[in-house]
């Protein structure tokens, strides 16, 4: 049985990676999806992928750092669905480097996308979800890097820690009508990681990631989307303010 039957969802960063796979998975689970992102062409590719999976999706251009864009995206969701059941704050960026080589501009840009983007999503998402007679669910895609420190990953770790705390605070404010939870994935092999290591020996990189964690299993986007489906569905109706690590045991080590 479809686990999100009849539900309506916004997925930010639906143009690639975990976001794109979430859209396709949501369609298979019976949800209609408004996917947003910066690249129109890639967005329309996701729409086509959703349609190929037998689902329905719309694309709306979206810079998550822009308050005006959020207002337009929410209006679009209202037009498409008349209500919003699920919001997946997935859009995010990643760069790394030693502190001394991280410019204030680099830090600022990452903070805007990964933290302010989530803040604006919570702010405008909650507004429309509170009007919905159905209970809603927000899932923030944070990271294991928001729970533990990694050398040379200061800006990303900081912004992901912010999204973890925003999840907890928003869960308290949004209850009892809307649930807010976060996933904290470790590395998963998908097109983004593949691009990150372009030109390198990809099999060797996979081996590196596999061995760099207690459970010798390198997951892919589906491992994250499985968690998203659980947290977005009514199966988790009593789960809010929770942070679920999907990290092959890295954070337990």
């Amino acid at each position: 049985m479809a686990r999100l039957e009849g539900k309506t969802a916004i997925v930010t960063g639906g143009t690639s990676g975990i976001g794109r796979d979430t859209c396709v998975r949501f369609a298979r689970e019976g949800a209609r999806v408004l996917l947003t992102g910066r690249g129109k062409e890639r967005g329309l590719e996701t729409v086509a992928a959703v349609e190929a999976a037998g689902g329905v999706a719309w694309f709306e251009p979206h810079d998550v750092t822009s308050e005006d864009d959020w207002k337009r995206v929410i209006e679009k969701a209202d037009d498409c669905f008349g209500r919003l059941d699920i919001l997946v704050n997935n859009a995010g960026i990643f760069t790394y480097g030693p502190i001394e080589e991280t410019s204030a501009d680099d830090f600022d840009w990452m903070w805007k996308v990964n933290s302010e983007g989530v803040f604006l999503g919570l702010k405008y998402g909650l507004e429309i979800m509170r009007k919905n007679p159905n209970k809603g669910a927000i899932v923030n895609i944070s990271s294991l890097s928001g729970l533990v420190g990694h050398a040379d990953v200061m800006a990303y770790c900081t912004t992901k820690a912010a999204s973890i705390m925003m999840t907890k605070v928003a869960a308290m404010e949004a209850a009892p009508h809307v649930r807010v939870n976060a996933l904290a994935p470790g590395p998963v092999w998908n097109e983004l990681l593949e691009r990150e290591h372009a030109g390198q020996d990809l099999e060797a990189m996979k081996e590196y990631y596999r061995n760099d964690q207690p459970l010798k299993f390198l997951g892919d986007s589906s491992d994250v989307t499985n968690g998203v489906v659980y947290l977005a569905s009514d199966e988790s109706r009593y789960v809010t303010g929770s942070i679920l690590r999907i990290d092959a045991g890295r954070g337990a080590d």
Partner: protein
Amino acid sequence: MVEGKNVIVSGAASGIGAACARCLLEQGAAYVALADVNEEQGQKLAVQLQADGFNAGYHKLDVREESQWQSVMKEVVDKCGSVDVLVNNAGVCVLKPISDMSLEDFRRVNDVNMKGVFLGTRSAIMTMRECAGDQPASGSIVNISSIMGQTGLRGAIAYGAGKAAVANMSKALAVECGEKGEFIRINSVHPGTVKSEMTTTMYGEEYFNNKDNFAFIPVQDYGVPEDIGNAVVYLASDQSRMVTGSELTVDGGLTSGIGGEF
């Protein structure tokens, strides 16, 4: 979600354990061993589940006895060929101030809640290894801890200590099995206030009929055993194949932060 899996649930005769058993069967489990110290209630549930068309059977188990764990493991392997999932759910709760908490109380709680989980987990891992032969062992162990194992609650010196121990045993074993190259995953679930036989006995039916008693929980309600059952299904299934050493809190937001007006 758990098609074909052979499962053992301890403390399965009632409450959260019974809900876990039913949820797992509804999601396709091939067999669920209802392991419980209470034979009458366990047999009764087995009959009910069988009448609903499910493949479940009662197995006598006092979780404090290693030999009984070994017997249950053997019974399930003989019957089904493998043990794929263990849900360590059996538990008892005693809440008392420290002045009234005797060493005997402390041991009574933790013989079941801590030692019982240790023995069950150890027996299951050994069995999963035996069944795997030359291949890396695989399986999923889900330990039912509590939010009292993560935060302090008045009176929970024995219960909280045991539940915290369960969470950390899960993490230590997740790392140990993973680093050995095995695919045995061990996670813990942390329920908040759930209406079950255990809590109804402790607080009374009346307590759960008054919604005002749950106003301190962000979602302003108590949870039901199926809420824990759904979390257990996710962790037992291959959908969580990358999840090990994780804590999944199911508490309606209770431990999300500190209450009260700012």
